[in-house]
């Protein structure tokens, strides 16, 4: 017992050092709403500070990037169709928290919605869980047939699924007379979250985001909680038995299988867990935007998320957080701000028109000068520098 206490004591400073920076960042993030306006008041520099609304979008996309990192970074499976999970999550919100199914009227835990409104209205918190589980199932269904493929072939098939889902969504307004997705018009409005009057009275939690004066701030804090949840799960998974199996598969599939790692199951789990977080992010984002539209789910979103992972550093959670926030910022606000500034300076150039060219250039430059990402993961760095040897089984070509 004493030995154990000593060990803990010896570990304490190391742990404290490891936790200090993340804790400081969390504190800064939690209080962001209270100082964002004063930051934005600073001349010139202030214009580059993202607004609270932009931060919500940035966080949602970063959350998806952290989810995608489980597939691409941990297990080494190139997934070019992650947008499918975003769509699945968003439409879960759309189905269960809007007036879309007007023939039924079912209310359960929804706040800020008149009880005589038609459609299904569930509590958003419940929907987030539902969306996670639904996309997890979608991930397994898509994963089982496709994950038998290796490398490039897998990338091509996931690309296909990433294209199929938006097309399906666009055209599923008349499935034998049944309107599932309302076609190109999308589904809106979608209910906002809230904790209801009882919890509001007892714990002081906001009753309804929609009816609150601090609506954006509430969405921001919720997004932050969801992101922290994703990061927490992601780190724990990385350090688990499953995380080890993912690395083993990434390094050498044949050897991993021979050591008792079930390839299909392990890969499918990485795919499904990545999907799980994408689904939650999608559902939350749909509630924030109060709508789900097929035009949101284009192929370029998958590539955009992949860029975040590559920029930050594949497999590195902290790197992906940074990469996600940087590209997210450029996407929602940064490029436009830069364009305005250039315009004010008399240069007629609008970077938002060339946004994907700019992201592409960033990725190319990263690949040339820092292929392991902004904050590289230790193991990935070595793999990049020295190469992995996943050659096919030597003897299969010989005998």
């Amino acid at each position, binding site marked *: 017992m004493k030995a154990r206490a000593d060990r803990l004591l010896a570990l304490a400073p190391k742990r404290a050092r490891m936790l200090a920076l993340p804790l400081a960042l969390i504190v800064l993030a939690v209080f962001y709403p209270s100082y964002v306006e004063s930051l934005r008041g600073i001349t010139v520099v202030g214009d580059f500070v993202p607004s609270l609304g932009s931060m919500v979008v940035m966080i949602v996309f970063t959350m998806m990037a952290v989810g995608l990192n489980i597939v691409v970074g941990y297990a080494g499976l190139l997934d070019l169709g992650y947008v499918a999970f975003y769509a699945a999550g968003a439409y879960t919100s759309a189905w269960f928290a809007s007036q879309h199914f007007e023939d039924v009227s079912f209310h359960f835990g929804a706040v800020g919605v008149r009880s005589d409104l038609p459609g299904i209205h569930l509590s958003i918190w419940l929907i987030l869980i539902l969306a996670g589980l639904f996309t997890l199932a979608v991930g397994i269904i898509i994963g089982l047939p496709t994950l038998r493929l290796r490398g490039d072939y897998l990338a091509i098939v996931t690309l296909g699924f990433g294209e199929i889902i938006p097309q399906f969504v666009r055209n599923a307004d008349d499935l034998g007379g049944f309107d599932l997705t309302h076609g190109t018009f999308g589904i809106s409005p979608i209910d906002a979250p809230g904790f209801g009057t009882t919890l509001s009275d007892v714990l002081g939690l906001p009753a309804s985001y929609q009816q609150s004066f601090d609506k954006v701030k509430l969405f921001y804090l919720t997004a932050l909680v969801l992101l922290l949840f994703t990061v927490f799960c992601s780190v724990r998974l990385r350090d688990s038995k499953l995380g080890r199996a993912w690395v083993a598969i990434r390094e050498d599939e044949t050897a991993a*299988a021979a050591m008792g790692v079930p390839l299909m199951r392990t890969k499918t789990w990485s795919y499904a867990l990545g999907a799980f977080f994408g689904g939650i992010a999608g559902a939350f984002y749909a509630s924030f935007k109060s709508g789900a539209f097929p035009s949101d789910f284009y192929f370029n979103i998958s590539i955009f998320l992949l860029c975040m992972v590559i920029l930050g550093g594949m497999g590195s959670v902290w790197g992906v957080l940074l990469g996600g926030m940087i590209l997210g910022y450029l996407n929602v606000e940064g490029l436009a701000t830069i364009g305005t500034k250039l315009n004010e300076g008399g240069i007629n150039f609008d970077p938002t028109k060339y946004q994907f060219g700019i992201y592409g250039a960033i990725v190319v430059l990263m690949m040339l000068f820092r292929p392991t990402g902004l904050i590289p993961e230790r193991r990935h760095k070595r793999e990049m520098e020295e190469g992995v040897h996943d050659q096919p089984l030597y003897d299969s070509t010989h005998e």
Partner: protein
Amino acid sequence: MSDLLTATGVRKEFGGLLAVSDVDFAIPQGQVVSLIGPNGAGKTTFFNMLTGVYRPTAGRILFAGKDVAGKPPHAITELGIGRTFQNIRLFQHMTALENVLVGMHCRLKGGIITSILRTPGLRREERTARERARELLVFSGLPGRDEQLARNLPYGDQRRLEVARALATEPQLLLLDEPTAGMNPQETAAFTDFVAMLRSEQKLTVLMIEHDMKVVMGISDRVTVLDHGEKIFEGTPRECQHDDRVIEAYLGKAATQ
């Protein structure tokens, strides 16, 4: 003594090429069996059928009473067949300890949710797994190498680590594919003693493919010889040395006359 593994009429064709032709084969419990034969005789193909890398074209493979032919590799490992590879296939960018921990994968119970919550039960399991992995490294002659990357280990140690990793799967039958290839005489001698110890102390049954006749004759209880995909001999090492067909396969017809 009962047989741990019996293969009957096992056959493997690659297109028109017959790699292994109707081989009957048995590994008695607790013995060291060597599989030898000239290059291209079908030894590794046979090995790969035992471990599930290939599905036999025909025939049955019974391991501890269960038919394993055509099962996926991980399922066969879980039933109790551990293996090493002819050309070392470690997880190069993982440490020695992590390599062994991957070998324990199918013996650990921790699930996804318990891993995220890090329940006391899971912490305990992980701690015992790490302790056991360290013991295995020491047992395999790699003390103090825990945190070294597999790729940075000297060649002989990499071979040892492959065995440690295979032992971590808790096998009843250990398959070694040319374990002493590329070793110097001292390393080979040490390895031979190690295999003998596995048999006597761990009560393991061992099947190995080996080209070094000193090793084969030194520790094998039985020897099976394959040539052109056919079994041409099965018996004790001593008998093997005097068998005409074996000598012919290795040295040509003139040598037998």
